[in-house]
């Protein structure tokens, strides 16, 4: 009984939580749509899907992408355009589910094609260089949409999607479909990572040459990750297009990509539930602080945000604070409260537990000499199996 409960919490708890939230918020948004909810819930849903899809690239493939917002903007523009065209052609309402689904399919497909192209760059480049290419890709997409003709994508004024815009009264349709899509994203990504393909992807992250030597088709899996990640980013973009009017390309600049990256990093790279929780927390915090600090005071929010980010990253990564971290961390605290005993025989080999990601650039430097293997199979810290020995 105990064992099956543990298996349940490990595999299905996140679905259950999202499912309950789905029901609660769907009812709430139909019964009493408030302005806060109409603002906040769509941004949370978009942030969660974007973070989940980016975490596939950053956390599991171990490549840095700074152009995730570019895929979202492709989804938003093309999905939005298709939705508007369909609504005009068939005289549909914005709440038409079929149009919504077609828009999502188109947005995901277009973004996936771009993901395939960027994935090709990932075959030749890695680490910082790939990061630059993705950044450049995002900027190119932004410039092209900003300079598009008035008839096609609205140019600098943005795509006028009044027909598609849901507003406060009809936002429930976005919330229901969005939450279902969150479940779908989670289902696809979680199952992908637990499949053979997922093991191959994490193997490529941990050591590409070794992965190749064991017969893993690196080309196939790298392209696969980029395509899937881009497709889900495109879906997030389509959701965005339903919640904002007009759609402006300037929103999807590299700052937006960085915001998503920050969510993934703060959630713990290679940790799916962490990414989702941090997406929710950061979006809510952002929204609350924006409401609290109006006008000139709004800038203090940014200062606070930046400081927190720097401090958290330093605290989590500074080599000097390592022993301190091991002594006082959330996991130990929870174990202490639950009075759980440390069980060294337990070996977790769940890919989702690997939260220290050596990126590929580092591998170049590190591989030849610096891998110190210790603590193999220490249940709670499987992340530390590959412990990098300081600074070369």
């Amino acid at each position, binding site marked *: 009984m105990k064992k099956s409960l543990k298996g349940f919490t490990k595999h299905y708890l996140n679905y259950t939580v999202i499912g309950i939230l789905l029901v609660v918020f769907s009812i709430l948004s139909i019964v009493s749509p408030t302005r806060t909810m109409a603002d906040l819930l769509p941004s949370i849903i978009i942030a969660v899907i974007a973070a989940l899809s980016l975490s596939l690239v950053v956390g599991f493939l171990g490549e840095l992408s700074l152009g995730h917002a570019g895929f979202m903007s492709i989804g938003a523009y093309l999905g939005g355009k298709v939705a508007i065209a369909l609504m005009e052609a068939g005289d549909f309402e914005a709440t038409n589910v079929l149009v919504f689904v077609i828009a999502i399919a188109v947005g995901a497909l277009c973004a996936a094609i771009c993901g395939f192209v960027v994935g090709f760059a990932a075959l030749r480049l890695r680490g910082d260089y790939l990061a*630059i290419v993705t950044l450049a890709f995002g900027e190119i997409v932004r410039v092209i949409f900003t300079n598009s003709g008035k008839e096609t994508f609205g140019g600098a004024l943005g795509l006028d999607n009044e027909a598609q815009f849901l507003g406060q009264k009809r936002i429930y349709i976005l919330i229901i479909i969005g939450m279902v899509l969150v479940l779908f994203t989670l289902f696809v990504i979680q199952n992908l990572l637990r499949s053979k393909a997922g093991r191959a992807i994490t193997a490529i992250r941990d050591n590409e040459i070794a992965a190749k030597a064991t017969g893993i088709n690196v080309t196939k899996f790298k392209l696969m990750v980029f395509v899937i990640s881009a497709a889900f980013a495109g879906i997030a973009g389509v959701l965005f297009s339903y919640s904002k009017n007009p759609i402006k390309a300037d929103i999807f600049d590299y700052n937006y990509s960085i915001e998503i990256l920050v969510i993934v990093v703060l959630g713990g790279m290679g940790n799916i539930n962490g990414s989702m929780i941090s997406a929710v927390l950061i979006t809510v915090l952002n929204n609350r602080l924006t409401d609290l600090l109006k006008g000139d005071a709004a*800038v203090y929010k940014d*200062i606070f945000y930046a400081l927190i980010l720097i401090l958290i990253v330093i605290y989590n990564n*500074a080599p000097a604070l390592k022993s301190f971290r091991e002594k006082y961390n959330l996991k130990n605290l929870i174990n202490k409260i639950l009075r759980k005993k440390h069980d060294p025989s337990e070996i977790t080999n769940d890919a989702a537990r690997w939260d220290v990601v050596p990126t590929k650039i580092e591998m170049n430097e590190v591989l030849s000499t610096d891998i110190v293997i210790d603590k193999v199979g220490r249940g709670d810290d499987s992340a530390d199996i590959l412990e990098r020995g300081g600074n070369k």
Partner: protein
Amino acid sequence: MEIIMTIINGLSIGGTYAMIALGYTMVYGIAKMLNFAHGDIIMVGGYTIVLFFPISPIVGIIASVIFCVTVGIVVERCAYKPLRGASPLAVLITAIGVSKLLQSTAQSLPFIGSKPKGITYNFGNLQIGSVSISVLTLITILCSIAVMVGLTLFVKYTKTGRAMIAVSEDRGAAQLMGINVNFIIMITFIIGSALAAVAGVFLVFKIQDVGTTFGAMPGIKAFAAAVIGGIGSIPGAMAGGLVLGFIEAICGMVPALSPYTDAIEFAILILVLLVKPTGFLGKKRREKV
């Protein structure tokens, strides 16, 4: 005549980019990190010259360099030094945080605020034959040439410069040879920030409008320049800067291309990387198991 104007414009824009790219490339070569906050150091330099310009232009330039160097040192000591030896991604995220922090702090200061500020100063034009060149453009070109020559000589012939090369080649071995790596990294940040300050001054005179995010775009483009030239290589940064400068000047001359300038520059960056992943002059790193 248009060709000559394009060449001169290209040199001036390219020179500015090269100066910023040098900061990026040196920090990358020596500290092995992407300093995303470099563009915001340009912004700090820009605001300093705007604030001090009414007193005296020379005071403004000196103040701008001193202030940028101070900010550079503080950032390096407080944010990057604790993370030495941590994963590059962590350092990159911290740099992004520092970039945001500098932008929002600048915005929160009462004498800066959220509205763009600027200075208008007419340097006048120089008439050579039938070509009229702005004196500012000439100063930019001369200054960037001087900086490049000076930096190359510094790195090649001084003890500190050679120590910098040593650290970028192999940090561990350099440390064993008695080089103070932390000191060298600090020197790198000082030089990088000073160059960013000078570039910031030129950009302010050219754009005449400073907002808190004004360093971001030149920063990213200079970064692209550094990558095109081969990141980590000093002549590479100069070459990359000039290439981007010429592309921008040519695009500026053709009305059909000018809205797409940024996209073209980034597309060329992607092409160069796909054809020659290490950039024009970058060194190839062998991967070992």
